């Protein structure tokens, strides 16, 4: 295995995982290298692609899977950084949402898109998959709710 000094926290995670595995089995340890399993904090943006040369559209969507019911804090793209929350209630801990005109698809090379990434934050780990182009996942327009008065995004 190779690890550079720049990933100390990852090494710590791997060592911890290794200890757990060794406690229950002598088989080899598997290290997940891709931060794709679950997290509590995601940025979402799409490169310009399908509409550039192909026949795809720029509709955007997201699939959220959460093992627990929770509130997902959504910070919309753009300098204003408006925040909303999405409540995952019984029956929809797994949701798909059509973010058609909300999530950014980058179009100009070498220009900073200020605050161009939407941010999704939860209090418990969840999985988020972004998708755009055709065919996209099922249409279900996003339903966003303003933050309650005095609410604070704690990330």
């Amino acid at each position, binding site marked *: *295995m*190779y*690890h*550079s000094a*720049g*990933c100390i926290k*990852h090494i710590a995670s791997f060592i911890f995982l290794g200890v757990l595995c060794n406690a229950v089995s002598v088989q080899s340890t*598997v*290290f*997940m*290298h*891709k*931060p*794709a399993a679950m*997290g*509590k*904090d*995601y*940025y979402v*943006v*799409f*490169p*310009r*692609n*399908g509409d*550039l*040369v*192909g026949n*795809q559209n720029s509709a955007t969507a997201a699939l959220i899977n959460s093992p627990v019911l929770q509130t997902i804090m959504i*910070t919309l*793209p753009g300098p204003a*950084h408006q925040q909303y929350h999405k409540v995952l209630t019984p029956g929809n801990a797994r949701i798909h949402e059509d973010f058609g005109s909300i999530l*950014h698809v*980058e*179009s*100009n*090379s*070498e*220009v*900073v*898109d*200020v*605050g*161009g*990434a939407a*941010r999704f934050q939860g209090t418990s780990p969840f999985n988020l998959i972004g998708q755009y*182009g055709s*065919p996209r996942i099922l249409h279900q327009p996003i339903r966003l709710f303003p933050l309650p008065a005095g609410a604070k995004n704690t990330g």
Partner: protein
Amino acid sequence: MIDEEEGINSGYGYYPNVYSIPNFTIIASQNNTNVTIVPTIQTAVGRMANVPFKITLNQGDVYYVSDAADPSNPNAVANEDPCEADFSGTHITSNHPIGVIVGQSWTTVPCGQGGGNECGDAAQEWLPPVCNWDSIYVISPAAPGENNGEIMKIGCGADSTTLTIWDPVAGPQLQGTLNAGEFWPYDTPISTALLITANGPILPVEMPISSSLCEPGSGPQGFNNAMVS
């Protein structure tokens, strides 16, 4: 979750009669993120290959880079050689964690007319940082009958890296020695499990070979970064 500190971009194929635009997208997770980029080909606004340039991003900012063939560039120049429409080897470093997405707008595999088909598609993939790359990987073949097999591009993250591929029949086969930013093409469709070892960080990227049938979904839908060792 964005947790990237540096990465080497990997771009792929090209459909000869349509502009295919290699691109990468950088997302910052903290304010005052200073990013240095060394592209391996000319960018859309004319930044030259192998000349570093710097940008500063704040939290949530996005920076997208395409190549000189981008039609949105009024001075767009189509690449004569389809296999040169490729940001592979581009080096990106930053002082705070960033995320990097890499891709091609119209991918066929193999690149160029060698692909022998018109069935391209967009392909994008998050790029893991070099510090998360490993030196030993097990590569499994695609499920029989699902596609035309997969080929690989093995990126290298350090100088003087010796690369060996272990075939169950032929045994260990030394492929060569690579420097940081270089990649090793493995163009034989993978038909059996392989073990890849090196003395430094490497990133094998599997790419499904394009279908000759232009049906929905026939083009590559993405790249598979080998992530488990």
